[in-house]
C-alpha cells in the first residue's frame, strides 16, 4: 500500500537526520579516503598496484578471508542450534536460550576479548585446569593465534547470526513438519530433509551477515591475535597510525568497503531487511 504524498514527505523528514548524519560522518570522509588512495604519496594507481604485489598485504587478505569463513561456519552452526531451542523448545528452554542470546549484547566487546584472554592464555583457566588434572603437561597455545581470534569472534557474532535464522524458523509452516512425520519420516530425517532446507534463506542471511561483520573486525583480532594474527582492519590501522603509509591504508580501505558493499547487495537479494532483526 502506498501512502499519500504528505505521508511520504513525513517519512522522508523523519529519516532525514539519520541520512544527513551518514552523509556527513561517513560518506563525505570516505570520499576523502578514496582521494588519498589515488593521490598519496603521488597521484596515480601506485597504491592499488602495491596491493596486488605486496606479499604482506596479500597474506593478510587471505588470512582475513580464511578466518571470516571459519568464523561464519562456526557461528552459523552454533546459532542454528541455539535458535532451534529458542524458537521450538519448551517454555523453560526458550527463556534460557533467550538469556544466552541477549546477555552478550550487554557486555562490551573489549571486556569479552579480555575475558577470553583470561580463559585461554598459557596461565589461564583452561590451561591450568587441564594441567592440574594431568591431561596435558605443557600449556596449549590457545591465544595470540588464529584459534583465539576465531573463538573470540565467533562468540561475539553468534547472537547476530541468530536473528535471521529465528525469523526463517518462525515463518515455517508447522504442518509441513507434521506432514513429513505422518508420511513416516523420523524426527532426525525430518530435520535434515525438510526443516534445514526450508530455513535456507535464514542460513544465507545469517552467513552473509556474519561474514561481512568478520571482514572488518578490529578489536577482537587485535587483542586475541596479539599482533601475530593480523586481519585487514588492524593492517589499515597499522598503515595509518604506525607507518606513515596513508595511501596504502586508504587503498586497502577502499577495497574492503567495495567488497563488503558487494556482499551486502547479495544479502539483500536473498533476504528481506526485516528478516534480519
Amino acid at each position, binding site marked *: 500500500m502506498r501512502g499519500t504524498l504528505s505521508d511520504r514527505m513525513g517519512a522522508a523528514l523523519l529519516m532525514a537526520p539519520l541520512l544527513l548524519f551518514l552523509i556527513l560522518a561517513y560518506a563525505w570522509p570516505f570520499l576523502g579516503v578514496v582521494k588519498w588512495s589515488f593521490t598519496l604519496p603521488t597521484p596515480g594507481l601506485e597504491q592499488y598496484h602495491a596491493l596486488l604485489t605486496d606479499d604482506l598485504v596479500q597474506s593478510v587478505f587471505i588470512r582475513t578471508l580464511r578466518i571470516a569463513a571459519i568464523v561464519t561456519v562456526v557461528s552459523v552452526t552454533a546459532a542454528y542450534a541455539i535458535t532451534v531451542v529458542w524458537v521450538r523448545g519448551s517454555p523453560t528452554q526458550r527463556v534460557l536460550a533467550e538469556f544466552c542470546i541477549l546477555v552478550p549484547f550487554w557486555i562490551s566487546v573489549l571486556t569479552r576479548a579480555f575475558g577470553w584472554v583470561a580463559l585461554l592464555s598459557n596461565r589461564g583457566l583452561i590451561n591450568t585446569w587441564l594441567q592440574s588434572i594431568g591431561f596435558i603437561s605443557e600449556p596449549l597455545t590457545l591465544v595470540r593465534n588464529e584459534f583465539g581470534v576465531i573463538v573470540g569472534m565467533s562468540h561475539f557474532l553468534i547472537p547476530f547470526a541468530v536473528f535471521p535464522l529465528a525469523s526463517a524458523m518462525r515463518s515455517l*509452516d508447522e*504442518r*509441513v513438519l*507434521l*506432514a*513429513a*512425520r*505422518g*508420511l*513416516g*519420516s*523420523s*524426527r532426525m*530425517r525430518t530435520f535434515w*530433509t*525438510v526443516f534445514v*532446507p*526450508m530455513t*535456507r534463506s535464514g542460513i544465507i542471511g545469517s552467513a552473509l551477515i556474519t561474514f561481512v561483520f568478520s571482514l572488518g573486525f578490529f578489536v577482537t583480532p587485535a587483542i586475541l591475535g596479539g599482533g601475530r594474527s593480523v586481519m585487514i582492519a588492524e593492517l589499515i590501522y597499522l598503515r595509518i597510525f604506525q607507518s606513515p603509509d596513508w595511501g596504502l591504508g586508504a587503498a586497502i580501505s577502499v577495497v574492503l568497503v567495495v567488497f563488503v558493499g558487494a556482499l551486502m547487495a547479495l544479502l539483500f537479494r536473498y533476504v528481506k531487511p526485516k528478516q534480519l532483526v
Partner: protein
Amino acid sequence: MPTISLGTEERARMQQPGRAAEIKANGIGKSFGSFRALDNLTLDIGRGEFLTLLGPSGSGKTTFLMILAGFVQPSEGKLFSDGVDITNRPAEQRAAGMVFQGYALFPHMSVEQNIAFPLKVRKKSAAEIKTRVGEMVERVGLKGHEKKLPAQLSGGQQQRVALARALVFEPGVLLLDEPFSALDKSLRGQMQAEMKRLHQETGTTFVFVTHDQSEALALSSRVAIFNHGKLLQVGRPDEVYDRPANRFVAEFLGEINMLPVKGVRPADNGATGLCEDRAVNMRCKAETIKGDAILAIRPEDMSIAPEASVNENGIAATAVASTYLGAATKLDLTTRQGAKVTVSVPNEVAAAALSKGNSVWLTWPAEKGFLLPDGGQ
C-alpha cells in the same frame, strides 16, 4: 480436466484384503488445560469406510483426526488399528496418509520429489520409486508438471500432489483435514467427485474432516457429527439427515422448520398431537416424548396449498417473502401463532397458492418430520 483413475492391475494390488485399516476409538478424551476438546469418544471406523467428521470449528473433529494421525496424544482412552493398541505409537510409525488443510507440501521439493518422499523414507529401491511415482503422477493428472515446485502450481494441482503423496505408499487409512477449504466452488465439486472415485478404487479407509454439511452428505458412507467435544450421532447420510438424534444435528445438517406440538401421545402407526390447535398425525415414534414437543420438518418436505386438505397435516400461514431460485421457489411464511417457516416448492405450486393472496395453507405428509423434545438440545 484430467481425472483420477486406476488401471485394473493397480486396483487389484491396492485392494488386497486387509490393506484398509479398521479403527476403534475407545473412550478417547483430550483436555488442553481446562479446555475439554474431546470427551469420551467411542467410535468404530470400518474397513474401507468413508467416514466424515462433521462439526463447527472447535467441536473436536480436528482434534480427533490429529489423535488418529498420532500428532496429538489423547488424555484418556485407547485407540486400536486392526485390533492392535496404537494409542502410544508415534505418528511416523502409524503409516496413515494425511492431507492437510493448505496441503503442507514440501516447498523446496518438486512435485516428483514430494510424491517420492514417503517411499524414500521407506527405503524403496530407486526403480520402484520411479515406477510408483510415475503411476501416481499420471493417476492424479499431473503429467508434465513433475519438475515444478509447489509454488508454481494452482490450488487444485497442489491438492492433487497432496493426495498423491498421501496415497503413494498405500496407507491403511487416509486422513483428510478440510482439504477443499481453499478451493473455489466449481473446483471443489470436481475434486469431491475425484476423491469419491479414488476412495472406491483404492478401497482404503478414508477419514475426512469438514464443517461443510453438504460436502459431508455427498461424500461419506457414514457421517459423525461433533459439537463441543462430544460425538452426537454417527450414521449414514440419509439416517442423520432424516432422523437426527437431536436439535443440533437437525439444524446443522440443513435448513429445518420447528413447529411446537402440544399434547403428543402415541397413536396408530405413530403419534398424534395438536399443532396450532389443529390435530396432526406423525408416523415417527413418540415413546420417549410425551406432552409438549417440537416437530422438525425439512423445507423440501412441506408444501403449500390454497385450501385445507383432509388427507394431510396442515396449518394456516401467511407468505411474507418469496425467492425465485430457478428450479424451485423458496417461500418464507409466518404461521398464525407466529412460528417462522421456510418451504421449498415447485414454481407452479407457489404461483397457484399465491394467486389468491398471501394467506395459504401449509401442508406436510404424516411420514415426514420427526419429534424432538420441547426446547431440548
